């Protein structure tokens, strides 16, 4: 997969404006093989992106297998709640996943609203 400069700029813009701007600490666009396509943080993060991407892709893959076992085509979102930090995964298309790391200052409902807008915008960028 090769994304051009314009597409990547637009992806960065969308993720920064909608997610980082809403209080998400770290957002990553990854592919289902675990490659990091875009990663943006709020300036305070020092997490190990490549490991998180590998595990996130594997986690999503495992969850898709579980979905099929219980008779679902897929679970389109995953949410892990921690004491202070939370992770929210969302599928963009067959190849891409969005991974958000955020704390308790932002509500899950608000994030989900933002995410549906972001996914729409990303699909437009990918199709362009």
């Amino acid at each position, binding site marked *: 997969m090769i*994304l051009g400069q314009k597409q990547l700029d637009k992806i960065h813009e969308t993720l920064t404006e909608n997610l980082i701007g809403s209080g998400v600490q770290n957002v990553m666009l990854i592919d*289902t093989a675990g490659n990091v396509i875009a990663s943006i943080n709020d300036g305070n993060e020092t997490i190990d992106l490549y490991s998180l991407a*590998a595990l996130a892709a594997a986690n999503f*893959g495992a969850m898709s297998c579980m979905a099929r076992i219980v008779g679902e085509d897929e679970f389109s979102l995953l949410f892990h709640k921690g004491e202070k930090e939370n992770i929210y995964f969302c599928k963009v298309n067959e190849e891409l996943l969005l991974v958000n790391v955020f704390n308790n200052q932002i509500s899950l409902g608000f994030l989900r609203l933002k995410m549906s807008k972001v996914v729409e915008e990303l699909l437009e960028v990918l199709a362009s």
Partner: protein
Amino acid sequence: MAFINLKDKVIQAKVVYYGPGRCGKTTNLEYVYDKCRTQVNSEMVTVKTQGDRTLFFDFFPFDMGKISGYDVKIQLYTVPGQVKYNSTRRLVLKGVDGVVFVADSAADRRNKNIISIRNLEENLQLYNKNIREIPLVIQYNKRDLEKQGIEILDIETLDNDLNAEFKVPTFEASAVEGTNVVLTLKKIIYLTMSSLEKQLK
């Protein structure tokens, strides 16, 4: 397929260590992680069972430095070798660019090696990849067992069993002692990068 970021000038390629259970895939990665710390900027991720067997994968990104102005990161993965974990092996193989097949030289593991390489072929087919076309290196691991009086397979037998059809580079190795571990890695990186270059042209 590798991911190439034209904006940040980064290439990410995926190399997977494949092979039967207990053949030394994790030991290979652990050796590389120990010896090449300057090229690894993160912790090694291991998803293990309580009995220390690989449950999902081991992983770390290996920094190759710059090639033609691009930062090249090789993502090294192992798969769980046990037969029952086939679905997780398939997940790890997704997007693979190069494979190291680690064979166990112990005589009593002959059949497990053959089953595993066939399983690799089948699983690659699921992603429309052909084992004859993907960059592949075979490592005959545990050559050191002979010193402990354990019967090992001779190279001819291993070649006939595993490489007769593919004719790919092979290495006699001992992951525990570190013999030829880095050489195996260098070879698969070279083959993977050459193959990516060809695909991009």
